[in-house]
């Protein structure tokens, strides 16, 4: 790069100072939050010595604990279902032309771009009407709770999974699938041994995204949750509105740690799955780097 393009002198200093300020802006609040979650003072702005009592409080708080379990169960169940549905949808859209394809494509994009608040309102009205119908037609007295939260999370997660998987499929040549089909592999075998190993990183990435979105969601969940069950973010949101406490600090730091862990996992999956690791990860990595081997195996078997 030439010297006139590279910022020089005062410009360079100004730009570099600016960048540092941006990073301070990014990280200072998080840093303060972490530090004060260890402070032994009810007042969150004053340092009162080191303590772990707020973290103890997190684990002793029965409502928080039950909210944590609802969150985890909702996240896992909605991720599994949306990964299956989203991957199938991605395959259909990237590999086939069918009637109603464009409508489906548009419908699949809507949950991504729709405002959280609109989606939340949709879920509120839908479940209100739905449960009324159940009551009137089948005399079922259902309440909002675990089921309705999971249903709403799947509704937005399918789209995110399919976008990630489609990106992977689009960058993948169809030649290998064609070759497998030419060599009389069944469609299932072609998918199982050729397509799936190649889209595996996309599927895993989509799954981690779905998991993160489900664990983070407040707005939609708030409207889909009921007296039956509530998730951790919704519970914490309710606590925050009543005021700031060190207990919320500790809970927030743990939520922060959970998201950082998930991101680290997805990065590790993308970058280092080839070196050691579990057979599943290694298999996926090999399928990507040397797809020909998969085909050869199919041919010689």
């Amino acid at each position, binding site marked *: *790069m030439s010297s006139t*393009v590279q*910022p020089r002198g005062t410009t360079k200093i100004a*730009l*570099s100072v*600016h*960048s540092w300020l*941006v990073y301070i*802006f*990014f*990280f200072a*609040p*998080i840093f*303060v939050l972490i530090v004060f979650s260890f402070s032994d003072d009810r007042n*969150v*702005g*004053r340092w009162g010595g080191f303590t772990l009592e707020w973290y103890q409080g997190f684990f002793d708080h029965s409502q928080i604990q039950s909210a944590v379990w609802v969150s985890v169960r909702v996240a896992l169940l909605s991720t599994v279902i949306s990964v*299956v*549905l*989203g991957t*199938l*949808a991605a395959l*259909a859209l990237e*590999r*086939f*032309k*069918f*009637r*109603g*394809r464009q409508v489906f494509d548009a*419908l699949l*994009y*809507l949950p991504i*771009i729709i*405002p*959280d*608040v*609109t989606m939340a*309102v*949709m879920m509120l009205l*839908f479940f209100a009407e739905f449960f009324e119908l159940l009551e009137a037609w089948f005399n079922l007295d259902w309440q909002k709770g675990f089921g309705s939260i999971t249903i*709403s999370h*799947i509704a937005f997660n*399918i789209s995110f999974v399919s976008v990630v998987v489609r990106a992977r499929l689009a960058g993948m040549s*169809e030649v290998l699938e*064609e070759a497998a089909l*030419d060599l*009389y592999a069944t*469609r299932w075998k072609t998918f199982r041994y050729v397509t799936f190993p190649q889209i595996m990183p996309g599927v895993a990435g989509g799954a981690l995204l779905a998991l*993160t979105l489900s664990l*983070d969601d407040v707005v939609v969940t708030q409207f889909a949750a009921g007296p039956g069950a509530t998730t951790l973010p919704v519970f*914490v*949101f309710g606590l*925050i*509105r009543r005021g700031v406490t060190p207990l919320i600090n500790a809970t*927030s730091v743990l939520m*922060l740690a959970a*998201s*950082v862990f998930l*991101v680290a996992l997805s990065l590790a999956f993308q970058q280092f799955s080839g070196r050691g690791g579990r057979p599943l990860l290694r298999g996926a990595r090999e399928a990507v780097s040397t797809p020909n081997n998969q085909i050869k195996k199919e041919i010689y078997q």
Partner: protein
Amino acid sequence: MTRAAVRPEEQEAAAATPEYEKAANRAASRRGLLLSLPAYAYLVLFFAVPLGIVMIYSFATRNRFGGTDLSGWNLEAYRKLGEPIVRDILFRSLWLAILTTLICLAVSYPFAYFMATRTPLLRNVMLVFVMIPFWTNFLVRNYAWRVLLGNDGLFTNITEAIGLGERELLFTTSAVVIGLVYGSLPFMVLPLYASIERIDLSLVEASRDLYASGFQTFRRILFPLSMPGVIAGSILVFVPSLGAYVTPEILGGAKTTLLGSYIVTQFLTARNWPVGASLSFVLMAVMLVATVVYFRTGGRNL
């Protein structure tokens, strides 16, 4: 139909007669439909139907008991959007969303340019550190600012210590804007960086060689060329800011009610569901227009 979807015998058949080609097309169409069916059915039932219900409610009337009469459609709820209270909230939301977008743009542009002119290794490191806050829990990020700005928070302690008196920002419009900027800054940085990095910087060099000043080069060369990134980033910041709910709830006060909170209030406390539904619809319409613009200007490729 894609080639991979054709089995060998189908391929031969397709070459033979149009009749067989049609049959093969139908088979592929069936397969595609079959694969998409589970997600299709799910989204129709749990997304399209709820959307339809919201639309029906937006044309309904609120009755005296806070319930909603679905018979007799009318535009009453949409007419209410012109009333001063709602109009003020609409304009305030619009203004704050624009302000947030402009601040994000002003902060991100020099940052993204600096990042794009670093060595590849440094670029990646800088990118990762932009991505980390972007990936962390949204609620927690807003809460962190509440801790910082709150009563007896670090911010107040600092203003007191440097002799500015006990300043408090929490529950003001400034606090909401800080929170919105904090939440959406990465959405501006990433597309800007992507588009600046793609510019052939020898054009900048040529401009300087021809005695353009730094500012002229920026205004006539760099900025126009980075326009796709500017538009994409602005939409990615503006749209969520307009419908923001969590940030104003946590950092704002009664005087800073925004669209998102107002809609929620209509459902939970005011119990005027038709007005809430019509506002949600307006919000979605803005979002759809913005998305169309985004795709038209090539935001998808960033």
